[in-house]
């Protein structure tokens, strides 16, 4: 072979080899990322040290990665286990610790940690930072009040947070009303509907609005059934064996439907709930 062609030949061979390896590497990296689920994570104190001059940017980055991870899981229709929820929580918490004024981690935390992850305590721990660092933001104590009341069943604490929210600038007059209602009596579902209507009014994202409306619809169904069960108990002295009984006995004209596609039922404690667990049912 003539000498002038050796080097170009080697170069072409190397480029071809490189392309082959790059494609292999890419698929291996994708497999690896799916395997470890991005769980390895440094404690916030270490991140603060390593973030140097870019703390806010690192906060944004951690948050956006968590957001897209969560979005990816939702898109694939996978279920998130408790361990992964913990990891998601740690990330949101780290992002908000790096930039405690950053609003997005709080909203995201409120949206997913409560209804989806069943971690209302963690949600409120997160929101408490927002409540302290954003003293003019009434939404933070409002969220906390809702979580205390609805998820943690602590009405006194819930009312206290709501009172705080109602005193902050820009809060809706309904917040004060809710606080008063919460501290006075025990109409749980009705209060929850009031909360959700307020939340829906605060939301401008059409997807979230739709979701809220669905949830309000489901809670309205529960509320109607709860009252019907009370009437039934007054009339017959016992809980109905089946909620359909309410229609059969003429207590209700029509059986409400769950917008999430579930069926309402009476649980062991005599409480009305739905098989959808207030989440869309996959068919």
């Amino acid at each position, binding site marked *: 072979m003539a000498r002038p062609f050796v080097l170009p030949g080697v170069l072409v061979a190397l480029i071809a080899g490189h392309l082959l390896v790059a494609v292999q590497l890419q698929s291996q990296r994708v497999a690896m990322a799916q395997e470890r689920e991005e769980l390895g994570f440094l404690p916030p104190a270490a991140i*603060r040290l390593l973030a140097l*001059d870019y703390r*806010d940017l690192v906060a944004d980055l951690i948050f956006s990665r968590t*957001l897209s991870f969560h979005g990816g899981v939702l898109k694939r229709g996978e279920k998130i286990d408790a361990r992964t929820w913990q990891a998601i929580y740690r990330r949101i918490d780290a992002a908000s610790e790096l930039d405690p004024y950053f*609003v*997005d981690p709080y909203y995201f935390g409120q949206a997913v940690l409560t209804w989806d992850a069943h971690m209302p305590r963690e949600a409120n721990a997160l929101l408490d930072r927002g409540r302290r660092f954003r003293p003019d933001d009434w939404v933070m104590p409002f969220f906390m009040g809702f979580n205390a009341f609805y998820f943690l069943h602590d009405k006194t604490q819930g009312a206290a947070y709501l009172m705080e929210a109602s005193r902050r600038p820009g809060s809706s007059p309904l917040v004060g009303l809710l606080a008063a209602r919460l501290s006075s009596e025990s109409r749980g579902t009705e209060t929850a509907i009031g909360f959700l209507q307020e939340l829906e009014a605060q939301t401008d994202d059409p997807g979230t609005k739709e979701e809220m409306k669905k949830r309000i619809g489901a809670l309205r169904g529960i509320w109607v059934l709860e009252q019907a069960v009370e009437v039934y108990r007054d009339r017959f002295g016992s809980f109905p064996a089946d909620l359909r009984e309410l229609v059969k006995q003429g207590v209700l004209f029509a059986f409400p439907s769950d917008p999430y596609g579930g069926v309402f039922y009476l649980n062991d404690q005599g409480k009305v709930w739905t098989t959808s667990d207030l989440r869309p049912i996959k068919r």
Partner: protein
Amino acid sequence: MKHLWPIAKITFLEGLRSRVFFGLFIVALLLFSSTYTMSYLFPHDVVKVAVDLGLGITSLVGLILTLFLGTQLLAKDLERRTIHMVLAKAVSRSEYVVGKFAGLSLIIVCSMIVLGGFAAFASWTVDLLTADQYGVVHWPTFVLALSMMTLMFMLLASVIFFFSSFVSSTFLALGLTLVIYLIGQSVEELKHFLETGAEGVAISPVFLKIVTVAYYIFPNLAAFNFKTQAAHGLSVSLSDVVWPFLYGVFYSGVMIASAAWIFRRREFT
């Protein structure tokens, strides 16, 4: 000190001719254009993220610029022996050092104006295209953050000069300054962490002493970080600004004076 201005001017023009300079500006432009796509990934704090990105990129590019131009400008004269030509004229060595520093500072200020302008433009357009509920740019704190960042780079430049005055290789001066930068950015955080303590971690008092001493020796560069205040428009009191400003002036002053003093006693071969 009548030779000060000519030296500063030559340094400034020499810096502008550097290829590093324009390469970095192109990189910066590309990075700034990412602001549009990046900030819209966030549901609420869109403008905040745009400001974070703008100031973060400015800080990163400014750092690289300061490190490379700073080490190049002084060390090149020494390595190429052009310093003999300058010192053969009736220019004192302290004049030379201070003049060079003034020239470099001028470059830093000009680059920060340009980079800050890019960052401001990117943030402003994002602000313009989003509704007010997704945040607004808080211009007074934005400008403050840029100014304090500029001062931080000038301080860093003075540290480069300090090392360059007795270290003979460009690479070594660059490495040492980079180490100072890393320590300076995190020493406050480390001190705070050790003082407040982590749960279940025993911290040796000797280590705490070492860190406390380090805190006073190394420049506390985190004190010049006003990016969070800029992104959220937090209120800044006069003393929040005055003390870091004076700190920057004095620290740079000490560094440059030491550099001039060492330089005067140095033997050139």
